[in-house]
């Protein structure tokens, strides 16, 4: 019974991540902002540490810290602070805070590994509920704003000229990214979240399809990579986050190879 629940939790958590991460990744990769995901992943680690210290659900505190940081980064960018500068300040600043917080509590440091590398064994029912709720919010928001977000991603100047609320849309995208990072922590860990956000999209872009078809293909690739990676992980008794990400890279190379042969 225990084994069944843990497996069920693990598979559901991974599948939610596989749908939501490339959905947000689609816009981040095309806006050349994949580093934003990596920065917010490191920022969320400070939130995780704070959660453990004060006895809250670490995913909830990670969500608060990541969302407020994402909005602060976007705000800095509007104040003529170069994107890389803002990202560097937040990435290293929050990592420093996380390290200090981990050193404060005796039970904190021992848990850090599962948040760095992901640990599907530890996904609780409340984690799963939070992931499902965040995932639903992200997918509904993207479905509603898909056309304006696509226009913003393709040509920000044109988006301004047709009266799209560019700053508000950018803030929405930043907040959604923070939500996706948070919900992906248990599956992939802080260090590999960026992979699920960017690699399925990079794989799908090679097929040169329409915007919507590319997004669906990226989600499909992420789902296949996740199920195959999980199976590998269970069969070979290796870390699931590593096997999922390597499977995704394998799929990307396979697509590249088959396109090269077709030519």
């Amino acid at each position, binding site marked *: 019974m225990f084994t069944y629940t843990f497996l069920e939790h693990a598979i559901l958590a991974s599948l939610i991540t596989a749908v939501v991460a490339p959905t947000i990744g689609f816009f981040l990769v095309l806006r050349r902002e994949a580093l934003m995901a990596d920065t917010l992943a490191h920022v969320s680690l400070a939130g995780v540490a704070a959660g453990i210290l004060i006895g809250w659900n670490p995913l909830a505190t990670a969500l608060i810290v990541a969302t407020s940081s994402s909005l602060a980064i976007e705000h800095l960018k509007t104040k003529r602070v170069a994107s890389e500068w803002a990202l560097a300040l937040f990435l290293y600043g929050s990592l420093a805070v996380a390290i200090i917080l981990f050193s404060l509590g005796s039970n904190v440091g021992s848990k850090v590994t599962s948040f760095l590398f992901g640990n599907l064994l530890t996904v609780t029912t409340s984690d799963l509920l939070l992931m499902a709720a965040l995932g639903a919010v992200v997918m509904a928001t993207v479905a509603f704003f898909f*056309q304006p977000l*696509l226009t913003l991603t393709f*040509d920000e100047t*044109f988006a*301004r*000229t*047709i*009266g799209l609320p560019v700053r508000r849309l950018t803030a929405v995208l930043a907040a959604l990214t923070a939500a996706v990072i948070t919900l992906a922590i248990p599956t992939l860990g802080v260090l590999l979240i960026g992979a699920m956000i960017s690699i399925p999209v990079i794989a799908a872009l090679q097929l*040169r399809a*329409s915007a919507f078809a590319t997004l669906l293909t990226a989600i499909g690739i992420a789902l296949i990579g996740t199920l195959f990676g999980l199976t590998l992980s269970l069969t070979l008794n290796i870390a699931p986050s590593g096997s999922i990400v390597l499977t995704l890279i394998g799929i990307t190379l396979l697509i590249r190879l088959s396109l090269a042969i077709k030519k």
Partner: protein
Amino acid sequence: MQCKSSDPILTFQNVSFAYDREVTLSDVSFTMHRGDYFVITGENGSGKSTITKLALGLLTPDAGTITFATKRIGYVAQHATHIDPLFPATVHDIVSMGVRAEDAANREARIRGALEHVSLAAHIHDHVAELSGGERQRVMIARALASDPEILILDEPTVGIAQAVRDNFYALLHELNTKHCVTILLITHDNSRAHQDATHVVCVENGGIHYHEDPHESHHHAH
């Protein structure tokens, strides 16, 4: 069809603008009326592209006023043909971006109509990376037309386009202006053909209007 009227559609009144204290435009005034075809010409750095950015609200003037009598403004940007070949978009996707939120119910009709204007309806499902430079330019015009604009603003649209394709492009602008009554504001340093169809030619030099003339009437230089 009589497209020209005496209704103003865009007015610049004593507009000045400086980038970081370096004066780019100084006391510029002109009025466009419905049905006009303005060509704004001038050397690189003369301030002509700044006029577009001010008109589109991308920049705010330091002094003076800019008044539009319509919200239906179409825009074709400089380097419109430099589309990232990796961007996952079909012709349909790009033109769809031009459809305004209030026209969403007629999205497909607007897209088809805009593509028929530029003779690209057959390419609706093609990936933009597969198109030639001239075809991409027409896709960008279709995107602007999808908003059903009353005025079309084009910023150096012929840069990097072959001469034969340019001729077709100017013929399309002429048709939009004379048959479909779209007011046109064209920023270009390509003097040859543009001047033939224009109702007004405005030359910008050192941040001011050097002359403002109707090419079909006698030369009237206003220094």
